[in-house]
């Protein structure tokens, strides 16, 4: 009887290990995305289906075409509105599917959605950065966020922005002044096995969004 108990326990442990380990290996997963979208409504489902098509197509293209495809998709599918109007909160970082479900979002929502989709399409994380910038428009300055793509580490980045329809190099965007940049690099490295539903993951907005991106199958 002792032996059967031990066997049962070891099977349980193996399953647990596999379950936790498998979370490390999740990459872009279409099934998860559709499941997550179905919870958000029919609009999200339709958008997600289209997005999946774009991502799959983009993963076969070269960098410039990929950037353009993703940039155009989100600039078209999301209307610019403040978080107050869309979510009723001062500041809310929505995940890509959440933004698509509403069809509306603000600057960081665009940047996050594009970041997630480019990662899903196979772009290395080291080449992407979200950048806090100051934008001068019509004489006034505003806080803004854009996505920057570095083809090489020291190169000039390409800017994906919702204010401008196309992807431009940084030098062509004199209205933007960068302040600080960040990405998801180093945040998951070497932390060991992550347990599902660790409440400390939700401590910062950026981490929260990264977690949501993972849950939706982008990462």
């Amino acid at each position: 009887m002792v032996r059967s108990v031990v066997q049962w326990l070891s099977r349980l442990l193996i399953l647990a290990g596999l379950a936790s380990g498998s979370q490390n290996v999740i990459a872009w997963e279409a099934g998860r995305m559709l499941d997550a979208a179905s919870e958000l409504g029919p609009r999200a489902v339709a958008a997600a289906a289209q997005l999946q098509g774009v991502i799959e197509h983009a993963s076969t293209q070269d960098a410039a075409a990929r950037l353009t495809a993703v940039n155009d998709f989100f600039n078209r599918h999301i209307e610019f509105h403040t978080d107050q109007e869309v979510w009723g909160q001062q500041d809310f970082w929505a995940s890509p599917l959440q933004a698509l479900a509403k069809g509306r979002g603000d600057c960081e929502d665009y940047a996050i959605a594009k970041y997630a989709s480019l990662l899903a399409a196979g772009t290395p994380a080291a080449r992407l950065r979200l950048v806090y910038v100051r934008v001068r428009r019509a004489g006034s300055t505003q806080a803004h966020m854009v996505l920057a793509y570095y083809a090489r580490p020291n190169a000039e980045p390409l800017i994906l922005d919702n204010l401008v329809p196309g992807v431009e190099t940084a030098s062509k965007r004199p209205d933007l002044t960068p302040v600080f940049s960040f990405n998801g690099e180093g945040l998951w490295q070497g932390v060991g096995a992550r347990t599902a539903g660790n409440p400390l993951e939700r401590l910062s907005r950026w981490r929260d969004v990264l977690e949501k991106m993972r849950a939706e199958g982008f990462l």
Partner: protein
Amino acid sequence: MSLMRQIWLLLLGVVLLSLIGSAAVSAVSMRQVLQTQLQLKNSDNALSLALAMSQQHGDESLMELLVAAQFDSGYYQSLLWRKADGKLAFERRVPAVPSVAPAWFVALTPVAIAPGVAQVSDGWRAAGSIEVLSQSAYVHDELWRSTLRSAGLLALVGMLAGVFAMLVLRRIRRPLDNAVQQAQSLVDGNFLTIAESKVPELQRLTQAMNTMVVRMRGMFEAQAAQLEALRVQAQCDGLTGLSHRRQFLAQLESSLAREDGPDEVGMVLLRLRDLQDLNLRLGRPTVDRALVTVANAVNSYPERVLGCFAGRLNGADFALWLPAPGVAQETALALSEALRISLPAFGPHIHVSLGAVEMPRSNRASAWFGAADAALARAEASGNFAVELAAPAVVGLPAQGERVWRQQIGDAIKQRGTRLVQFPVIDRGNQVQHLECPLQMRLEPNGAFEPAQRWLPLAVRCRLTADVDAHVVALALEAIARDGQHRCVNIAPASLLDGGFTARLRDLVFQSPQAARKLGMEVAEPAAINSFDLLYEMGRQLRPLGVKLGIEHAGSGLSQIERLYQAGLDYVKLDASVVQGVAGDAARAAFVRGLVIMLRSLALKVYAEGVTDAMDVQALWDCDVDGITGPWASAQIGSSSGRVNR
């Protein structure tokens, strides 16, 4: 495994489990918290540093200065600045501070913390990344300290729980032990009731057992009452309640054969004169009442005096046996006076004649009756209410005085001028169950060995029976050690009254524990009736050592021993007066059978004494007694009765 030990082990196991479990759980959760905190510290500090470095417009020396400043003023193990192409631009590093926790503890609680990483930029240009790793030894320090603290607290709690549990268990244990002891004493034939305990389960148990004991007592009392009825039927005269002729004769024989008792005893014969004539004149009912009055007058002596017994020999004749020297004539005169006053109330011309006899006990019954009849004849010739004394044959005690006897007995014990005589007690298959061993003592140096009838009265008078009985027990233990046979010795009732007697016996028995298990001690029935508590106490001390305790010369007095069921006895030997004549008399046989059944139900063995007749033997086996002793038994065994053992 005993119940108490099981409970203790369970308690210990639970306390240990909770102790270790709590300590482990608190350590693990604390480790989780500290680990997360440290990780967040790394990440947040990296972000702040990167933010500051990104404002330096790419001035490398300024950025290096920032890194150095942060490192020096913080609690870090290393700060690294990597350029965008991955090459190391600048670093500050110190070796890790060791923790105060022991190495095995650190190995048990691994803390995996990754360095915090943040991106540095200069305008649009990526300037690389910064890696921050804080000192993590304090995690183990804190874990170790908190584990020690919680383990200490839980150990304290565990000890308190243990103390509490011990108190509670002790409260339960005492009534439990009492209940077990009650059950044990039931097995031993001791019917006790104990106080009910407050513990509910045990309360029900003790209630049930007490009820059972009470019921058994009730049954015993009912049986005793039944037995008394049987006895009356077997032994007593219908009208007056005195023993009838046959029973009186049997009692007489038995009393003459007994070893204890005084040397000179007396008997009074009483006759109501002209009974036929009185019947015709006064009518039967009146005469019967007169006879009852006479019987009551005669019976007043057995009620008061030990060993005395009376009987109605035939229609008009009554007899009274007085086991004491010098009282026969006084008793007869007193009776005569009392009847002289009370009898005339029934009618005129009612007369009695009395004859008194005093003789040494060694005479046979026929000699007694002969002398008594002669005295009665003379009294009848003398007149109404006359008393005549038969001339006693004078063989008194050697008139030497108490001091001399004391000396003689003391010398006999010291110089081993004593020997044990053996009489077998046999069972159905003629196997010897045990040997009865009365003591013979040489009073005169180089004299003959005297039987107990001779030396016992002296010993009683000198109050030396305790010494003699202790000596007897010592001899018996030696004899048992030699040949391994079961033996029984007699204990005089007077010895029980000696305060240190039981202690001396216990010491003797302690010294030969093996032999003690084959030893039995028997006391005469009157002692059991009168000194019940002393007998019980002796039994309580000696029976646990394996010694058997019994009653001899038991008969009609058995139903009078209150708490016989509680007495702690092992066997009973029925007196000759009860078992003689069983073959011919159905009533006596019924009485004996009833006695055997009652005594058996109390887990006592029953033996019959003084059996002479082979027909009686068969009848006794039919009554289911356990053993027989007496002349017939000694003859069966073949060796002469009185095989000696020094």
